[in-house]
């Protein structure tokens, strides 16, 4: 009987060990990273830490992107801060202004005032057929699916062209990863 118990214990241990090995780190909560975001309009400059960004009024919705060659990423539930909220600290955005987004990997993208207002984007259904654009919001996201955005997915801060309802795909070229600078350019 003792031997049978021992074997049973070994079996449980083996299953546990093997299962642990399979899951790796996936189950661990992402650690808060140190990251600063600079928001500027060329004359005024503000530096925000990740906790300071998270303290701003949050936007929650959905994000689903597609690359130039048709690779889809997502869908995600998204939490972040509207870009319009972030640039308010340097005077907001007016007609004709543009907003440049930079990342330390050397990627740069520009939104015009129309896009900052949520229009001027192409949208698709889940089969990548074009569909009329629902209300869209340009967001600096810090959470995908309820957890911090992993580094390999562009975290801790990534641009998302998000929607209030799921099921809409937006062009991913604007979804800048690892955002560390936002600059308003006045005409």
């Amino acid at each position, binding site marked *: 009987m003792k031997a049978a118990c021992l*074997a049973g214990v070994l079996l449980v241990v*083996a299953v546990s060990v093997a299962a642990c090995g399979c899951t790796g780190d996936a189950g661990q909560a992402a650690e808060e990273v140190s990251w600063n975001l600079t928001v500027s309009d060329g004359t005024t400059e503000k530096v925000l830490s990740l906790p300071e960004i998270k303290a701003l009024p949050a936007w929650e919705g959905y994000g689903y992107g597609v690359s*130039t*060659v048709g690779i889809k990423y997502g869908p995600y539930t998204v939490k972040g801060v509207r870009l319009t909220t972030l640039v308010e600290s340097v005077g907001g955005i007016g007609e004709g202004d543009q907003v440049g987004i930079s990342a330390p990997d*050397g*990627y*740069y993208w520009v939104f*015009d005032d129309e896009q900052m207002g949520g229009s001027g984007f192409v949208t698709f259904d889940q089969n990548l057929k*074009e569909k009329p654009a629902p209300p869209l919001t340009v967001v600096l996201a810090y959470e995908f699916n309820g957890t911090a955005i992993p580094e390999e997915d562009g975290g801790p801060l990534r641009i998302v062209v998000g929607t209030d309802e799921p099921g809409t795909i937006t062009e991913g*070229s604007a979804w800048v990863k690892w955002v560390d600078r936002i600059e308003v350019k006045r005409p």
Partner: protein
Amino acid sequence: MRVTPLILLFVAVFMVLAAGCAGDGEQVVLKVVPAGSLLIPLESVEAGFEAAHPGVDVQIEGHGSIQCVRQVTDLHREIDLVAVADESLIPDMMYRPMEDGQGNYTDSYTSFATNRMVVAYTDASRYADEITAENWYEVLARPDTVVGISNPMLDAAGYRSLMVTTLAEDYYQDETIFSSILGDHLRPNVTVTREGGVTTITLPEVLKQEGGKVRIRDGSIYLLSLLDAGGVDYAFEYLSVARAHGLRYVSLPPEIDLSSADHADNYRRVVVDLGFQRFASIGSERVGSPIVYAATVPANAPHPELAREFMDYMVGEFGKGYEEWPDPLRA
């Protein structure tokens, strides 16, 4: 002795779970990053190579050409083979030292195929029964004809569309071709300057369509969808892409279709200055040149020997000149 079956069960369960964890541990994953217009041919190359190399899993991950290179140089991913639709990108972006100081990202590349720009359309396209190789620019300029291009900021086929329509002006002796087909239907205004025999098209930071005549999409696959759905009548595409999707197309003269090394001097007479420098690692100026596909094995490739073997096989396959693939380079 009743314990023996339990021990055997334990061993069996452990081995099964351990095998599950290891997955295909014996399998070598060869990571290949090609330009989007190579994706269809590389499906076939992948299948052929894997059939001849049991235990090798070729993983294809498509991007725009510049993004292909950046996977290695800027994002520091371990990639076995990079294949781009513009051979100049490799020396421009990869002939530079790696971050760890162990030499350049690469010091050589293999050119293996070419392509040509065409005007693709379908039976349902407006004036499909009228368009010819002689009148294509007049048909595309008509106010009720909708023309699609991919975004020049994102796709080489996009800025090459601008080059083709600009080169057409000289070829057909008609200075309105670029503006009537594309330039007048983009906003903010596109600037065209001519100096010393070179025409430079300067794009705004955010390029948009003005009105409904021109439609700009991130990549050529979205233009194909629009063609199928009737959202555009004509789209500037690579010949191989048009053929692979069963589209009708108008062939353009070699003097303007960016296919021929014989006309390289002519192609150089058009320059597109993109609206902003999207990547720190390459400037925003694109000079007209023959379309030449090239591949390289980065110096930090995880499986360099296997990658070279794959590249040799790929180059050989392209050399066979399949109908729906980019054409082989002439000797």
